């Protein structure tokens, strides 16, 4: 059984159909990337998995459980975290409060402190700024906070929506290195990226999404060599 199994996923925004039947599988321990142009439906795919938008057709199974009928907060409780597009941090809460909030649904309160230590070890700058309002962080620090928050939910699968957006190249390197470390420690990643070059370097496998349909799929290294993918997403 795959950790995540999406079959025939369709999503409508009113009369507009954003996804036309997506099939996508993520195995435990993998890093899978979903690349595609603006408006291809990458964000919509992640939002459907975490049930922020209701699917109009198809199935989504996580560890064998059908997610399509669940409210989003229960999807989190099952072990799926989501670092949303634009980070979605709570600017009116402190860094520490943002991190603690993500433990809201957890039963194992005793482990919270240990997980905080882990996040501060991965992102020392968050530790230095834990009492600061999150709105005062730099863009890169906010992205770290968004990832840290997802870690605090203790998820098995982390959905990431363009974590490199708006960051300087050095910071992108740093974030991607951290994602690799998080994966090595056992979290499965489904990574949406426009930065296809970096994403294919990091991921084991990839899917290419085009106007709501999966265009190509395969091992990341093979996709990086695919002439069409190179032409469309890797600048030739």
């Amino acid at each position, binding site marked *: 059984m795959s950790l995540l199994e999406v079959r025939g996923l369709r999503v409508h925004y009113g009369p507009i159909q954003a996804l036309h039947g997506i099939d996508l599988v993520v195995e435990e321990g993998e890093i899978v990337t979903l690349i595609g142009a603006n408006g291809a439906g990458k964000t919509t795919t992640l939002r459907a998995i975490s049930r922020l938008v209701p699917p109009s057709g198809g199935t989504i199974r996580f560890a064998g459980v059908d997610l399509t009928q669940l409210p989003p907060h229960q999807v989190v409780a099952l072990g799926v975290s989501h670092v949303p597009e634009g980070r979605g941090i*709570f600017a009116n*809460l402190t860094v520490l409060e943002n991190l603690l909030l*993500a433990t*809201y649904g957890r039963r194992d309160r005793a482990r919270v402190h240990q997980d905080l230590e882990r996040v501060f070890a991965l992102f020392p700058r968050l530790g230095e700024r834990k009492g600061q309002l999150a709105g005062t962080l730099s863009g890169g620090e906010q992205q770290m906070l968004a990832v840290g928050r997802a870690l605090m939910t203790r998820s098995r699968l982390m959905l990431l929506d363009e974590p490199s957006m708006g960051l300087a190249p050095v910071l992108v390197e740093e974030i991607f290195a951290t994602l690799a470390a998080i994966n090595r420690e056992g979290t499965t990643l489904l990574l949406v990226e426009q930065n296809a070059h970096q994403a294919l370097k990091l991921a084991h496998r990839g899917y290419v999404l085009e106007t709501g349909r999966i265009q190509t799929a395969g091992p990341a290294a093979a996709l990086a060599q695919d002439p069409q993918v190179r032409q469309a997403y890797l600048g030739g």
Partner: protein
Amino acid sequence: MPFVAQQMVNALQLGSIYALIALGYTLVYGVLRLINFAHGDIFMVGAFFSFFAAAVLGLPFLPTLLASMAATALLGVMIERLAYRPLRHAPRVSAVITALGVGLFLEHFTLASVGAQPRLMPPLIASAVYQAGPVRVTTVQLVIFLVALLLMLILDRFVNRTLTGMAMRAVSWDKSVVPLMGISVDRIIALTFAIGSGLAAAGGLLYATAYPVIEPYMGVLVGWKAFVAAVVGGIGVIRGAMLGAFVLGGAEVLVAAFLPSTYRDFIAFGLLLLLLIFRPQGILGRREVQKV
């Protein structure tokens, strides 16, 4: 000087009651960006629940307070569930009309069930007068002030120190991301109505303790005043609601002390409107960050 000090005591009494009601406006506005125009009438229902607990069931002060807070909290949750939740994504004006409708419903439901003649709240606090230097303080005033202060301290701690309080603040910032933290937004909103309504009920009991005549329309003017207090303090800001309430209470008492009492509301409201011209976001309010 003694005169001013005495007026301060009166202002604290009035401000305490306004504060408990103003908090409900500000809490609900914080999570829903909705002015709950029914809130003044929830306060009125809270006063009637207190009346029944005290006059019919014969309960003493503290059980009356707790029973009326609990019953009114439940009423608030029901109002949110039945009237506001179905309109969560409807145009703003529908929600406003609904809120006004809920208020009228509560007034007339109360009118129909208890009748129009005012009821006299039985005295729950043994009256005594303390002389502190030049100032006279009654037990009723002390109880009002202490109960309100205690409730506000508990609320402030709850909102600032607990995970659920953080969740309330997070909802007020950006509802759309909150479910990703494993939090049910519906539950946080329901809880916010429960807290706001419970505090209004406490305000209702304290009001009825100070001014023991209660009737179905008592929530209208008091509700508007508490709303103004919340706006003056900065709507959506919890400490602002408390501050605004004491500013309003102070303004009213001072005007009444020096001018004919018919001028009281007109001058007090005029002053506050003037303040809003210069500081539209209220004393502690932030300018709303426009979010899409």
